[in-house]
């Protein structure tokens, strides 16, 4: 018996470790991804004034702080029983769309992309964004510049791109001036051009090379969760939940009723919980016969929605469906779906900047504390994000529950890594390229392990553990 350790899993947000144990024949018997740390937000937010939460929960994640910020502001609206003025809502949506462009560029080109641009089995010392910048300086410069444009736009709109402060109970604290709008327009146009370039560049030069890998690595059979408007259009800021079964049929519900549909299962070998679709039966991560498992994030969203509201993204969705069907179960295509969403958000930013409401000075309504419960959700880049708060009559938090994007994907990540390891490692043969390809199955989900461990404090580590057919742990290596 032999143990393979991949530690740390790199180019993802947070700490992870994969341990692969092989049986005597050199094949993978079974695997587990353990999450070995937790964070404490649900405890230490209790007692805090609810209007301060949009500035506290942001620190759950420095990569998607806008998602937590906006979900928290929406939950505040519900707690106080107010609706933000149109400009307040649209400035929130604008920030959400800009943040998406920045994060999707970050994930594809800085984290996942090096596997595809440099090759999964290229030398590890160049398989990174610095390697890309050295091999193709022009591309490297474009990538660094366009991601940074998003951050600069958010600074202009709100003052603080990471751990923002301007989405508040009742709206948005800072109106956009006409001078700022004029500054943003050329930046938004440049990002849209980059999004178009990214889509065509990858479709011509990257994805065709990996179609075989895409069809075999990390593929599992699950349901999907995403957010849509009443007519089935994808919406990343607001809407109802659409929960799709693996056969493509779906049910819809309001996020305020999420506890009727989503449960969280605890395994003794992971601090991270396993959300599941309550009404689909008991959760099972068995690769051959999975049950009650659904996925979130880009691929899930483009599977559940009927359409995009912007023309270029809609055309890409049609092409994607033509090629891969609906729902598409090919895990590595999360990356392709992410680039379609990059395009959608870049279009959306330009659209919102032309909206006559966007420079209105009416961005916020005052609020008065009361005892209430409120649920707020947004689509975070990594999946559906749900915040649920209760307050006393002074507006202090008495209870809080959070379900974040990556946590929904806990079970699917476990399954995809197991599937990838079983597919790639045969008869004890493997090399660093194969081990990196196992990591690619995790990277496709763009997991944000800081988000996923918001429950208790600490950075996260993921560990893959192999057991024999009887469920006995063959070997374990801990990452602490």
């Amino acid at each position: 018996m032999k143990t393979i350790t991949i530690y740390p899993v790199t180019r993802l947000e947070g700490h992870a470790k994969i341990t692969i144990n092989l049986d005597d024949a050199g094949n993978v018997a079974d695997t587990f991804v353990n999450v070995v740390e937790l964070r404490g937000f649900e405890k230490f937010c209790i007692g805090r004034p609810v209007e301060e939460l949009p500035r506290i929960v942001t620190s759950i994640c420095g990569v998607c702080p806008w998602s937590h910020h906006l979900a928290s502001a929406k939950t505040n609206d519900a707690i106080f029983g107010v609706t933000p003025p149109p400009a307040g809502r649209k400035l929130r949506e604008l920030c959400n769309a800009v943040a998406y462009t920045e994060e999707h560029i970050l994930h594809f080109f800085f984290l996942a992309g090096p596997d595809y641009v440099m090759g999964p089995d290229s030398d590890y010392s160049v398989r990174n964004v610095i390697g890309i910048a050295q091999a193709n300086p022009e591309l490297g410069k474009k990538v660094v510049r366009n991601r940074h444009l998003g951050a600069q736009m958010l600074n202009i709109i709100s003052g603080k791109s990471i751990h923002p402060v301007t989405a508040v109970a009742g709206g948005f604290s800072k109106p956009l001036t006409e001078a700022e709008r004029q500054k943003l327009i050329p930046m938004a146009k440049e990002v849209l051009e980059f999004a178009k370039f990214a889509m065509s560049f990858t479709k011509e030069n990257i994805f065709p090379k990996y179609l075989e890998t895409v069809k075999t690595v990390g593929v599992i059979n699950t349901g999907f969760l995403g957010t849509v408007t009443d007519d089935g259009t994808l919406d990343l800021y607001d809407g109802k939940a659409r929960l799709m079964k693996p056969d493509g049929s779906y049910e819809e519900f309001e996020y305020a009723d999420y506890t009727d549909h989503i449960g969280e299962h605890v395994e003794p070998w992971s601090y991270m919980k396993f959300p599941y679709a309550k009404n689909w039966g008991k959760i099972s991560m068995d690769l051959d016969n999975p049950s009650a498992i659904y996925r979130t994030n880009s691929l899930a969203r483009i599977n559940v929605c009927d359409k995009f509201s912007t023309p270029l993204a809609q055309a890409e969705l049609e092409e994607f469906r033509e090629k891969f069907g609906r729902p598409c179960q090919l895990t590595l295509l999360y990356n392709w779906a992410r680039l379609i969403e990059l395009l959608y958000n870049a279009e959306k930013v330009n659209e919102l900047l032309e909206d006559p409401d966007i420079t209105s000075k009416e961005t916020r309504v005052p609020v008065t504390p009361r005892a209430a419960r409120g649920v707020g959700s947004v689509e975070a880049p990594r999946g559906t994000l749900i915040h649920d708060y209760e307050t006393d009559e002074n507006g202090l938090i008495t209870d809080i529950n959070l379900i974040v994007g990556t946590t929904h994907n806990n079970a699917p990540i476990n399954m995809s890594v197991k599937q990838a390891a079983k597919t790639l490692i045969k008869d004890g043969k493997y090399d660093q390229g194969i081990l990196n390809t196992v990591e690619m199955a995790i990277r496709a989900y763009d997991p944000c392990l800081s988000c996923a461990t918001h429950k208790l404090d600490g950075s996260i580590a993921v560990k893959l553990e192999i057991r024999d057919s009887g469920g006995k742990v063959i070997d374990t290596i801990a990452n602490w």
Partner: protein
Amino acid sequence: MAVKVAEEWLNICGGCEVTILDIGEPLLDLLGELNFVHMPVLMDHKYFGQMGEKDEMEIPEADVGIISGGVRTEKERKVAELMRKQCKTLIALGSCACYGGIPAMANMFPLEAMYEKVYRGSKTTDSAETPNENLPPLLEKVLAVDEVVKVDVYIPGCPTNPDLIVKAITALLEGKTFKLEERSVCDECPLKREKKASGGQIKRTLESVEFDQSQPWENTRCFMEQGFLCLGPVTLAGCGNKEGNGDGVTVPRCIKGNMPCRGCFGPIRKGANPLVDMMSAISSIGLDAKQVPDRRALLNRYIGAQNRLRPLPARPSR
């Protein structure tokens, strides 16, 4: 010869790493002078060899080590110790590394109370025992990096400011050291101050501050003097940058967003007590310091390590 850099993240959100990228295009020039030998967020160097073949954890030797995040687990303590051993100069990047950061708000509670909430007190969770198979126990509290190893350079902020990272690295490349000047956020805030508040009530951010974006910043009254609690007087300056503003004026980040400061850069000098100092700042302009809601957590939001936040003794029953 290029300077070797190793970067590690401990109890993190990743915001400080994104801030490194927020240096923008000048980062590409800096990369010519820096040789990153270890950085899990962007690079594939592994602890136990690329094939996992080694027994001992390895981080390459480096001239400069950067650590973000505080310390919550034994594993993070080990990584911090190894970084110290391998790196000539060690930088604590961001307020989590410098003071524990927001995650150190957990230090107000015993660990067991958190397990209870998460596994047996959540409305969506099927109640269960605290997971304990092959999982590392957490440390009882969140520690700042300098509670574990010696730190040479502090770059605080939640997240920090990309300009400061460039300044610190440039100083180190020139063989100099780097330290932020002991100034307060108010010292770099352009808002108008009259040294007294307009009323006796401290306001929560349930309503907007008064501002006029068509006028220069100097025409807007200090938020504290408008009655909103703002931690500017007790917080280290450094967050503001001209670029974010577009009009060439340095404005603290949250002020630019029409929101009061919450102290993310930490105390102005080592050993300062922002809670006590803030109370006297509030009183000095004629506001009632006793009215601050949730005072202890609010005034220590980013600095709960180093024993600033601790579980309160249970109140005696009456």
